[in-house]
């Protein structure tokens, strides 16, 4: 039996204390213990990005992180973006640009985009491509995703300041 670890963290703005098995993956913890099933598993080995969440604002493949490592950190998942029924601007942009089809990669994709925009509010196409190259979309909505993220740029793609 693996050891149990007590972790203190925040999830989508709420403080939490939990006891977790030391070898439990963060992805499994998020899905099965926090019941936040928006975060998806596509490969379980960090290749596809479907499970990307933000830890202290940085994107992380949650399948590669242990739940125990959450101690002292802020976790943001896809469920934490909309506030009081109002969608976050990245979510809105994904809808406006039809930047997905099946939607399975979308939560991870949006989290990566969110992280990019927080550290770089006016990304170029190259910045977007680099930041999202860890997220696979088999439906191939990449062109729309690029446009969606660009539309969230402070320069709004056409050089306008919002």
């Amino acid at each position, binding site marked *: 039996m693996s050891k149990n670890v007590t972790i203190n963290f925040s999830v989508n703005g709420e403080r939490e204390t939990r006891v977790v098995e030391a070898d439990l993956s963060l992805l499994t913890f998020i899905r099965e213990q926090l019941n936040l099933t928006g*975060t998806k598993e596509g*490969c379980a080995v960090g290749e*596809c990005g479907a499970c990307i969440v933000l830890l202290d604002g940085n994107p992380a493949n949650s399948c590669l992180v242990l739940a125990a490592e959450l101690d002292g950190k802020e976790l943001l998942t896809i*469920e934490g973006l909309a506030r009081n029924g109002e969608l976050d601007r990245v979510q809105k942009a994904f809808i406006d640009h039809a930047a997905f*089809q099946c939607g*399975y990669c979308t939560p991870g994709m949006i989290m990566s985009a969110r992280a990019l925009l927080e550290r770089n509010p006016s990304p170029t196409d190259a910045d977007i491509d680099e930041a999202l190259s860890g*997220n696979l979309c*088999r439906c191939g909505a990449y062109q729309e995703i690029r446009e969606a993220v660009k539309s969230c740029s402070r320069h709004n793609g056409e050089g306008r300041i919002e």
Partner: protein
Amino acid sequence: MPALNYVGISVPRKDAVEKVTGGAKFLEDLYIGPMLYARIKKSTVAHGRIKRIDTSKAEKHPGVKAVVTGREFPNKVGLYLIDRTFFAVGKVRYWGEPVAAVAAVSEKSAAEAVELIEVEYEELPAVFDPREALQKEAPLVHEHLETYERVPVFYPTPGTNISNHFKLRKGDTEKGFAEADLILEREYHVPQMQHVTIETHKAAALWSHDGKLTVWSTAQSPSIVRQLLAKSLDLPLGRVRVISNYIGGGFGGKAGATMEGLVIPLAQKCPGYVVRIVFTREEDVQGTFTRQALYARLKTGVRKDGRITALQYEMIWDGGAYTEYGVNIVRAAGYSSTGAYDIPNVKTDSYCVYTNNPVGGPVRGFGMCEMQWGIERQIDEIARELKMDPLQLRLINGMKEGSRTASGQAVAHVAFDQCLQTVAEAIQWGRKEGRYRGKGIAGLVKAPAQPSNAASSAIIRINEDGTVHVLMGATEMGQGMLTAISQIAAEALNIPVEKIEIRVPDTDFSPYEWQSVGSRTTYTCGKAVQMAARDVLEQIYRLASLELGKPAGEMKLDNDTVYWLKDKSKQVPLKKLADSYKKDTGEGVSGPIIGRGSYVPTKMSNLDPETGQGNPGLFYCFGATAAEVEVDPETGTVKILQLAASIDAGQAVNPQLCRVQVHGGTIMGLSTALYEEIQLDRGRVLNPNFTDYKIPTIANTPPISSFILETAEADGPYGLRGIGEQPMISVAPAIANAVADAVGIDPRTFPLTPERVYKAIKEKEAGTHSIPG
């Protein structure tokens, strides 16, 4: 055609908010407990007799509730040729074939328990190349082919590895070749690929104490899964319920019945528990449908003026270990074997061949990407020999209004020449831009591959307040079914899209749908929805006529109101009619309004068994791709500079979603052109993960120019035709033709990896360039 209000408009996806908030429920997101977790024991040889299976240690492992093997559960399943068992029975035919399964209280316990199952094999001689499998001395993959049940339009050859031989004879090829000034004969090859949907295959089963089976599946087609499972289990259809939630990508890989049967016997042993299986990425790549590899030989005769006079096409398909579905890919490729071109004399033989490779099956394009690869490459090779522009050669031979397909079916509403010219213009066709740069073009055509009576149905319920529920059996795997069908219902009823509700299917409540495959459902379900809407309107107008005292034939529904066409002030709110309409005296007149639509194609037919002539196409969708590339001769790297795609959608129901689909298909085509190939070593997949099996990221995606043409399909709902698979078909040959133009090599296979391109360039320089790998 009258102006449209809701079709042709880019409304947001019906599933949009759920999908960007993490609220969309995919199979694994459902809590459907109390639950058990299943894992499978897989074969470690590609072909072998099972000498012994010992499950005793696994059965005693803590947490294990049930173990099953093929001995106890030999049930067979299959769509067109029933050659497949859920578990290997007696022998295994491919590496990774399920031989046993365990259900346990945790994933961990189940994973440990399968390791405790001991299986001993006597290895049998195996065959991994379909051309070798055709030889007399080849080992037989299925010894008792003659005993297999099949749909009678498939022609296996018992005593061989041929599970279907499709023959097509049109015109007189001897005469055609005699008329030719040039005859070109070449071989082409297409490797296996995999859908690698980001959501892997998953299924769950519940056997209730009263003997009812509920299955949750990532299946594209719950009705057909229900039908195939009920037959396999000898259960009445009504006792089997299949639910498909949102599906994380399909592309054909989740068509038919796939792996649902693995959990059913476990569920039968544990009534009251939901037994769930989630394939790992490796299991998904190794153990679900792959695109069948194709070895093709084309011989084309052409006159000096560019007119093609004859085509002889031989296709040898690697069907893999089971071809229950694959036999129809071989048939579809056969009856379509002239691609988008009008060729008067054709002789085609298309063979589905068993090997000990992974199971072949449907993939986006359903044989068309593979079959049209050879056609589109050969046209460029002919153009070079004739010193003719490849675009011109395509325009001369391309199908036009009234042209006949290989099977002799006349095509209508055709604007293939426009499809070609549009993409050619987009990349400035004819202008050479630099030494290592080149341009290529390719055309495409595809009809849905489906039985001639593949049906769709719809129910429309008008709620008591005048809002609408549409019930359909089609699935939502990203293609936009929910949105497109809502728009068609909105148009047919003249009620806004926001008032239309539609859900993913559940066979206990949704009406029958053959399958969500073949780019067919927007058309076929659209037809059913139009019929249901007409039924609803008749009922509404009958009641409105009673209420207003005017003829039913002079009524019009507009959103929430029914009015008299001759005087709009005579009107009644829809909700008054919909809420169990009664007279002023209180006497009831009519219960709830429910409309019914039931559609089956009536113009398709069987094909002649000797000549393959007949009408297999519900509609034919044309398109084209053009590409400009730059090849680095030092590294063999192909860079895409321009990529343009056109598709004739007839009528785009939702132009924005239509465009996303065109881009997505083009990217999948690009991916196969440059990256994707299943690497096999004696039937074992060497690259069952995203590190070794590459698909593009956003950083590998060039901008794509897309062009949606709208040449209305007369019988299609609002003139539409399906476009889901099509954009992929012409991409690989267009890119290969551009590479050929850039550096003068002649790719006969793909992906065009740097290694392959570099080698071909070096061989060309050395004068030994023939057929690369």
